[in-house]
């Protein structure tokens, strides 16, 4: 791995250029990230997708580096052969990404649309503030999965840690394993499906009524990602007892009256 250089302000490689090492074959490209830095990997990826018109990129040896494949705003297909560190695949809009290893904390944070499939485990805060798209983690995830989720679907093949769906506002979380304490704590809206056991429910998270729309959604997602027949799932939604939108602040009350 090459040494990262910093400028006088402490910024990492502010004037780096794309290394232009990828082998391009029509609309497909592949490059080895072994000797590149975080910034040059991302610059090479952007060069291929935005300048070379490549639609499928394969990256080898990501080496668990942080902040890879972030901010990609075009439809494309990216395969990452290995593991990512923190903030992988964040802020993306459109790509279909397949990570063959694992991801660290805050993967797919603030994702707008697209698909991210992770074959291994994920750290905490997976899909934080997710806005849309699908995040599929075949392994287990850490704590606070789908914190502040505002849309999209998160599917977890294994167990999930504490406070899954903390403060979620919209969207769906499907956990096929067991979940830790405080499931759906302070959630505003959205739906959480759990196949295994729930250690404890968070504040204002209650069991919900199963409908045909739930069956349709779960079957469709399982079919798309080849997860087999869906197991029996429990559904959890917001109890809405903490909803206090009708009571106005004193200053607001004056305006209304």
């Amino acid at each position, binding site marked *: 791995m090459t040494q990262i250089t910093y400028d006088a302000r402490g910024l990492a490689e502010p004037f780096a250029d794309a290394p232009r090492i990828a082998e391009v074959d029509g609309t497909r490209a592949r490059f080895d990230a072994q000797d590149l830095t975080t910034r040059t990997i991302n610059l090479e990826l952007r060069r291929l997708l935005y300048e070379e018109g490549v639609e499928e990129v394969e990256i080898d040896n990501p080496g668990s580096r942080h902040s890879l494949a972030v901010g990609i705003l075009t439809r494309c297909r990216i395969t990452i052969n290995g593991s990512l560190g923190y903030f992988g695949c964040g802020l993306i809009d459109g790509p279909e990404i397949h990570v063959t290893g694992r991801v660290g904390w805050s993967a797919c944070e603030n994702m707008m649309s697209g698909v991210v499939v992770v074959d291994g485990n994920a750290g905490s805060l997976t899909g934080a503030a997710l806005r849309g798209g699908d995040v599929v983690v075949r392994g287990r995830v850490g*704590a606070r999965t789908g914190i502040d989720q505002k849309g999209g679907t998160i599917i977890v093949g294994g167990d999930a840690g504490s406070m899954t769906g903390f403060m979620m506002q919209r969207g769906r979380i499907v956990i096929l394993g067991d979940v830790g304490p405080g499931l759906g704590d302070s959630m505003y809206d959205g739906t959480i499906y759990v196949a295994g056991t729930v250690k404890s429910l968070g504040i204002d998270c209650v069991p919900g009524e199963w409908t045909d729309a739930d069956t349709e959604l779960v079957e469709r997602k399982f079919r798309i990602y080849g997860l087999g027949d869906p197991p029996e799932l429990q559904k959890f939604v917001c109890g809405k007892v903490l909803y206090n939108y009708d009571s106005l602040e004193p200053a607001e009350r004056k305006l209304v009256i």
Partner: protein
Amino acid sequence: MCGIAGIIYRDGSQHPIGDEMTRMLQSMKHRGPDSTGYALYGSPENGNLVMRYKLADANTPRDFEFEERLRRHRAIVESRLAALGARIDEVEEETPYAFRVSFDYDGDLKLLADFVEDIPEAEVLSLGRALEIVKDLGDAESVHDQYGLSGFTGTHGIGHVRMATESEVDIAGAHPYWAYPYSDVAVVHNGQLTNYFMWRRRLERAGRRFMSECDSEIIAVYLAEEMSKGASLKEAMDKSLDELDGVFTYIAVTKDELGVAKDELAAKPLVLYESDGLVALASEEIAIRQVVEGEIDTYDPFEREVLVWAR
């Protein structure tokens, strides 16, 4: 933020843990550039006790008498060890203010540590038959070079890169912490303890001394205190989950064991790699990749998990 790391070889074989830990910590430099520390478990010659101590801090103001004072205090340390009946084998000067002394001694360790720390500005960083704590300001590579860790072999070790939030940037505030006065127990910690002062007062009343204002210092002493009452490392760590408040992930080591504990919110990161030969753990997977080749399977432990491995 801080970064922590640990490695233990399960078969008890000797490995260059000084270099391995340096690579792990250097890869997490961005988590804490203030200071770097190591707690390494080697095998001192002839089964001697090893004491690491410092006679000034890295950023103590250097006045005209600074060097003279260090020379004088160093002579007092050695004469006091001799007065207690310790037969000094070797004294190494790692930096002008930090020393490593190995000696043969079977008396009371608390008495010895107190006698040394009675000298102005002296602090015993570690004392034990395997444990050696090395800590200083700067990143892992500079501490590694300064203290000549490249030749250090051992069975297990932990390390810490510090981003100071609660106390001063100096060696006294750097991790790992030795569990004064119990030999061979050390802790690194990433997090904040909110009932620090309560525990500090409680432990001080029980006769323990604290050299810094850093909350992490109480964890080592707390665990050693529990173990001295007969608890195993695992039992002591399990109990700490209820008795210590705040957010934390800490790694504790004894002569034969390495354990990790996470708080009930799982607020601080930890990535774990387990194989038949070794266990490596760190705040970020990138650190584990410095010591394990190829693609690896790692996972993050959940909340309130306590895991202990023996060498």
